[in-house]
């Protein structure tokens, strides 16, 4: 019984369905947070959740069961039967860029708070109308 359940979940198709459902669930949570939360830290957390959801979606769907990580090791001496390295490289780039943008945004928010004492998006109304 348990073995058949485990076997069912190990099929590549089922794993891909799970990843799609799960990452989109995470994306939903991030989007909900972005629309409903107004505190600046919460907004950044929500954006981070959306980002991570897209990363998991991409890496998870490009993953093939039975293939190894794209690097040589003790057991693998040729570049065959390996996972696609391009998604890994892309997500690596995207993670670093996302962090840079987050740090910059937080530094804007800190300076803005020091000047005006506002830390919520709906309070920001320095402009007219």
């Amino acid at each position, binding site marked *: 019984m348990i073995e058949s359940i485990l076997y069912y979940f190990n099929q590549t198709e089922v794993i*891909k369905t799970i990843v*799609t*459902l799960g990452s*989109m669930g995470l994306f939903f949570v991030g989007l909900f947070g972005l629309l409903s939360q107004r505190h600046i830290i919460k907004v950044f957390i929500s954006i981070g959740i959306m980002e991570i959801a897209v990363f998991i979606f991409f890496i998870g769907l490009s993953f093939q069961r039975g293939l190894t990580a794209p690097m040589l090791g003790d057991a693998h001496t040729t570049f065959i039967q390996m996972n696609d390295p*391009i998604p*890994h*490289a892309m997500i690596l780039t995207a993670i670093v860029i996302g962090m*840079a943008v987050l740090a910059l945004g937080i530094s804007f928010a800190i300076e803005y708070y020091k000047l005006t004492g506002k830390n919520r998006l709906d309070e920001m109304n320095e402009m007219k109308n």
Partner: protein
Amino acid sequence: MNIKRDISTNAISSFALSALFVLTLLSILLQHIPQKLSSAGDKLLEINAQEGVANAVTTVVVYFRGFDTLGEIAVLFIASFGIGLMLNFQVQNNQNKVKSNFMLQLGARLLFPIILLFGVYVMTYGHLSVGGGFQGGVIIASAVLLMLVSSNHFQLSHRIITLLETFAGVSYVLIGLIGLIVLDSFLGNFLPHSASQLGLLLSGGIVPIIYIIIGIKVGSEMSLIVQNMLQRSDND
């Protein structure tokens, strides 16, 4: 009472909106789950051995798609000085800083060289195993963070960091330009490299050199970000 009802209507409407959006998304995505197809990455894996780099992700990041990485370095560079510009850094007086106790200082001082060594290891072995310049650079920055938090007098020399940063950035672009002149392709691998060197520390031509340069750049910029964030004066 009124405000509370406003918040909950807002929450419900945004919940419904995002649920609608994501359900539409799911209904399309679940019908079209991508199948395994021969992608550009597989072709890159086939020619990867020629570069003599054991970690295929490193080859892709530093060489095949090296231009993206140059752009990424530029993003970090801009973000780092943008943060420096925003939280304009002043050497603050240490009066209102909590004095950390002896054990913390001793532990931090003991751990600092070990973390530093680990960072350098991750950086230099990026072409052979997991890791590389980005990860190694950030590990070095975390060692700096430990010292900044624990020690009362530790202060990064602004001049040395600037020098390192400039050196790394300029030499990255210059290596690319040498490739343009020698091989007629920007960032071309002009140093000797072959499949027979696979797994050696000195292998892969320009790949490990560029990854170490990236490590220096990322390490110095992350350290600056960390220092700026920690030492933003609280008084105003």
